[in-house]
């Protein structure tokens, strides 16, 4: 009876589902890779270096200052990848690295690591870059150059002024905002436009997102709510004044699709309740349109998500589910 001497005594339940947090995280990493491939297709192999620098920046502080073995859960890799995908294809590598490191250190580790952070770490890193390097992060190399050419000023070093000698192209949102020119929605949908590495092909992002939603690795309510709110609000404005961009342009330009599907759905920084998910997504859609239409920036997805991240604890508190058999307030004893 050797088996008997080794018997476990644990509390129920004795069985569990096979899903695990690392499996969820690494699956998200895997679904981000097609976006990276598309970015490489549009902007040349240089983007691989930018993304690699952002991932390295995210992973190093997690490894040295995070929980032991924290890299294994895959969450730092996601942060680095997501940040990389939101950067311009020609961003100097050291900036991408600093962005990743800042995002993990100040967006996640100072809060206590995985599960404790309020803001999406990738967006914290990007917000830092936006504040620190406003020119570099809004310099968009054109997607039309020779494929093998390394865009931008990848190997610039800190404190050196960038010798910018690249062909640049404004993003569709920039064109709209500052020059009043639109872009074909179909072009936006397939991704043949200027923009961040991973944000241009709405179609591909939607496919990847649908896969994750089917596996229940992201809450479909959040992107659906973002898209609906954006479309309805932008559509209403467009009807009132046709100078404002239409709903389809709003949906498929800039980082909205990427942000709604991969950033806003970060489990840690989005509401846990289903009702909260709808509110959270609606808030993001609303803020995106407000910033894009009336704000000073061409793009507003990052700030919209960060602002709504800050509201998540509040949203969670006011959307607590009604418990089974709950009595109406008045006759509760």
């Amino acid at each position: 009876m050797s088996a008997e001497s080794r018997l476990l005594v644990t509390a129920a339940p004795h069985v569990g589902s096979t899903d695990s947090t690392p499996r969820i995280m690494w699956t998200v990493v895997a679904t981000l890779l097609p976006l990276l491939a598309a970015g490489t297709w549009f902007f040349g192999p240089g983007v691989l270096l930018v993304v690699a620098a952002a991932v390295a920046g995210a992973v190093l502080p997690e490894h040295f200052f995070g929980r032991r073995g924290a890299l294994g859960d895959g969450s730092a890799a996601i942060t680095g990848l997501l940040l990389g995908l939101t950067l311009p294809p020609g961003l100097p590598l050291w900036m991408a690295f600093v962005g990743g490191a800042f995002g993990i250190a100040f967006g996640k580790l100072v809060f206590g690591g995985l599960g404790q952070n309020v803001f999406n770490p990738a967006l914290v890193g990007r917000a830092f870059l936006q504040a620190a390097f406003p020119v570099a992060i809004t310099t968009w190399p054109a997607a039309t150059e020779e494929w093998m050419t390394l865009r931008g000023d990848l190997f610039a070093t800190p404190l050196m002024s960038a010798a910018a000698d690249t062909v640049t192209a404004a993003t569709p949102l920039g064109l709209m905002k500052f020059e009043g020119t639109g872009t074909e929605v179909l072009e936006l949908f397939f991704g043949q436009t200027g923009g961040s590495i991973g944000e241009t092909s709405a179609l591909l992002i939607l496919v990847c997102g649908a896969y994750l939603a089917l596996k229940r690795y992201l809450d479909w309510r959040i992107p659906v709510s973002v898209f609906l709110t954006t479309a309805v609000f932008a559509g209403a404005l467009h009807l009132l004044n046709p100078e404002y961009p239409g709903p389809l342009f709003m949906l498929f330009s800039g980082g909205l699709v990427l942000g709604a599907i991969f950033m806003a759905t970060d489990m840690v920084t989005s509401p846990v309740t289903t009702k909260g998910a709808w509110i959270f997504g609606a808030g993001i859609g609303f803020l995106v349109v407000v910033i894009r239409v009336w704000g000073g920036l061409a793009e507003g997805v990052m700030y919209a998500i960060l602002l709504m991240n800050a509201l998540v604890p509040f949203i969670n508190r006011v959307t607590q589910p009604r418990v089974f058999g709950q009595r109406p307030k008045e006759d509760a004893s």
Partner: protein
Amino acid sequence: MNTAFLRSFLHGVHPPESKHLTAAKAIRRLPFPDELVLPLSQHAGQPARAIVKPGDRVERGDKIADADGWVSSPVHASAAGTVVDIELQPHSSGSYKTAIRIAVEPHSAQIPRPRVIPDWHGLSGDELIEAVRQGGVVGLGGAAFPTHVKLKPPEGRAIERLVLNGCECEPYLTTDHRTMVEYPERVHLGLRIMMRCLGAKRALIGVENNKPDAIEALRRTKPDDLEVEILGLTVKYPQGAEKMLIKALIDREVPEGGLPLDVGVVVQNVASVATIAEVFETGLPLIERIVTVTGPGIRRPENLIVPVGTRIRHLIDACGGLTDDAAEVVLGGPMMGTALGDLDAPVMKGTTGVVVLTEADVRGRVTHPCIRCGRCLEACPVFLNPQLLGSLAGKGRLDAMGDNHLGLCMVCGCCSYVCPSNIPLSQMFGAAKTDLRRKAQRETLRGDAAGANA
């Protein structure tokens, strides 16, 4: 939300059913063991009081311990033999509890002492209830709540419906399933007797759709004059929980802190009902029960009928023993059952099954931080926020847990089951509920003491 079209409740989980191991196996009777161990506490409520002493000879079916109060139940000898001692014995709860040990007479025919079997038709409701009480009948679904208490609702509370629980929603277990397939007439007779006791006009039997043969057997044997409807339910755990079953069958929610009585319903498990029928058919009290011995860690899974008091080791040996990779022996189902440390603990009235899991089946031991994925909220059948409760538990904030409806938690295990970070949520809630209960008891005692001093 109306759930009638789903024939189920909201939320819940779908663990692998794993019932194929024993679902089609007919119940087999084991030879009597050499020794029986009958704990005085086999039911919810006060333990019984022993009325025999070492050296006494007992016949099969003799009462050996009497109920101590109303919420208690007598214990009977499940085989003829001699009382050896009344000492502490391993108990399926994991601790040691007082039990009457009987050396079974090796050559006895095990024929019970002749007794007068009352014809139930001529008995009044109270007489029926007394017979059930004397038969030591308790709920066989696991909680072992004394049946006679359920049969006598407080004065002035009308029972509209009697609901029979044939869900057996725990993975692996097939005792209720086999009871319904092999003894459907007993289920109907027991139901009829219970309806008489309660004055209920209608009855419903809820059976999950993974047991089509049980549904068919119950429908085929239904007496024409019995007002009972047999309904198939969408398979989902924990459908066998009273509140979930009532929601699934009649779409009503038992109020928080209330009982099924509050919606005019009494719920009873099908096996317990069949036992009531047995009491009147054979005159024998509850002295044997069906136990599923199963799981990947057992060599020959089977449904056995055994005397109450048979040691678990005897059952495991009868089923070919443990496999080499057996890792955990669970009494009851894997979602809510108790892990057994000592295989010498006996089968009790509420022991539904012995499930032996292997290393590959048991929950992993690595946990990760909570990523607030919200799956626990979508699993909780009573709509709690296990994510919030779990973080409060981590901080030891018992009172805040109480304020967030911890009292509703049935410790069904759904939240722990789905948690991708493997956080022992349900386990923490079970412990917190015990702590809160003890704290309340201490405060009552302190209040009493203060009152006495004043």
